[in-house]
């Protein structure tokens, strides 16, 4: 039991399959095609700065919409009877198990030209091109990641001790005050973990934008996918930037999360 040796196979595995691949990315990001040290990949990566900005923007908006939808849902769920709560958790979990490409493809079918929604709208006399804009990409992201926002917020809310709320009532708080002073502050850790679970994958995902947004709305993941097959140096530089950006974001989130837990 006291043996550290048991971890040796995994430590070797980790070096070979986690650390060395990362080191390779870093190495490629700082070399040019001839294999010499160079900042060229980063200069090339700079051409995609608008894609970076768009990815972060789309991820932020998606994240915000997820919070707006998830928070009331989680709140309502946490106030239900236990059996109903379990049912809701299951209803929200099931779509998460469907492959993400199928879920996005479902929206392609729904929104495509002459698809069900388009046909319905044109009967009403509205001719809108539903596909190929940033809004559709956000819709896809929200659909994809909404459960990842609902579940952590719900988990935190369902753990709130009912006696706290009763105590607040006894001390004369009305329901708005109870929400502001008791429920909301206690639910912040859930929101924080929801944000990390939604923001990180939506900022770095690929294909969602290709499927729903067309070529004008591609995101940074799509750029990495496209570029990596031809120019691995620039691809590595972009990956490295994405990785560091996400890391900084996670550290910040962690910091906020801890702050809240202490105060």
């Amino acid at each position, binding site marked *: 039991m006291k043996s550290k040796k048991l*971890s040796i196979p995994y430590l070797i595995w980790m070096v070979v399959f986690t650390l060395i691949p990362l080191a390779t990315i870093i190495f490629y990001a700082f070399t040019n095609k001839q294999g010499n040290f160079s900042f060229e990949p980063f200069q090339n990566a700079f051409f995609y700065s608008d894609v970076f900005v768009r990815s972060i923007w789309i991820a932020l908006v998606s994240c915000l919409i997820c919070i707006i939808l998830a928070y*009331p849902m989680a709140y309502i769920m946490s106030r239900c009877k236990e059996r109903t709560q379990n049912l809701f958790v299951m209803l929200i979990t*099931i779509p998460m*198990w*469907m492959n993400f490409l199928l879920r996005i493809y479902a929206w392609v079918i729904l929104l495509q030209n002459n698809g069900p929604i388009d046909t319905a709208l044109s009967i009403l006399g509205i001719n809108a091109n539903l596909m190929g804009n940033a809004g559709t990409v956000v819709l896809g992201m929200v659909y994809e990641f909404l459960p990842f926002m609902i579940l952590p917020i719900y988990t935190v809310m369902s753990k709130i001790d009912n006696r706290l709320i009763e105590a607040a009532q006894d001390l004369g708080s009305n329901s708005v005050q109870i929400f502001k002073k008791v429920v909301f502050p206690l639910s912040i850790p859930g929101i924080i973990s929801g944000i990390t679970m939604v923001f990180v*994958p939506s900022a770095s995902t690929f294909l969602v934008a290709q499927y729903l947004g067309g070529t004008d709305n591609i995101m940074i993941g799509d750029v990495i996918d496209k570029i990596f097959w031809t120019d691995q140096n620039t691809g590595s530089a972009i990956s490295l930037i994405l990785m560091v950006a996400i890391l900084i974001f996670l550290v910040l989130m962690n910091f906020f999360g801890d702050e809240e837990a202490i105060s």
Partner: protein
Amino acid sequence: MKKKNIASKIFVALLILFLYMPIAVLIFYSFNDGKTTVWKGFTFKWYIELFKDNAIMQSLYNTLIIAVLASVFATILGTMAAIGISNFKGFKRTAIQNASNIPIVNPEIVTGVSFMLMFTLLGVALNFEMGFWTVLLAHISFCTPYVILSVMPRIKRMDSHIYEAALDLGCNQWQAFTKIVIHEIMPGIFSGFLLSFTYSLDDFVITYFTRGSKFQTLPIQIYTMTHRRISPKINALSALLFITILAILIAINIKDRKAAKAKGLE
């Protein structure tokens, strides 16, 4: 108060509708006798064609093989690692745990391309092509951290005196290990295994970058089919996957409820 109740019911209903309508539409068109979204009558032909499609059946088989091998291997590797790591202290332990979390924290696409880069370099050096083995190695690598994460809390909660008691009562180290330690942390091992299995089954991104040109798994097949929009077979496939998921989750739920009841009776 009443008004609020109705409003919240409508909200919940709309949200559930939002989650399920796309899947329902996908399944609906699996019965359509036409290739587009125009309804041409009811048919089962896409289901029949699905089962006749050798490429899809082969990729289903590949997916299952990879998932079983990767999750079994990751469970063994991860459980051993968790026990070993729990004996480290201080800085070393934090460093190992942080390094181990890299595949979880890192964007999937970065993990994917980093594998691709390394496997291509190794492939050139050692003369092999990406395929079954590279996918398997990659899957084991991204599954193992989840096993460690689910086994670790169990080890922390375990009372180390039981192990010592077993030794005092005449067990040798191996017996004490298998009878006590493994038994105590089994729930963690099992949930780590299940996590690995489902992540491996569902993985698209990492497989996409490590599969080479020929090896197909089901998510890759889904990608090819949705990307080119060839046939409603993909809808039939979605319907079957959905039914399977539903059945599994309902089964788990019933089992949990029974277990909870049994606990209540004790």
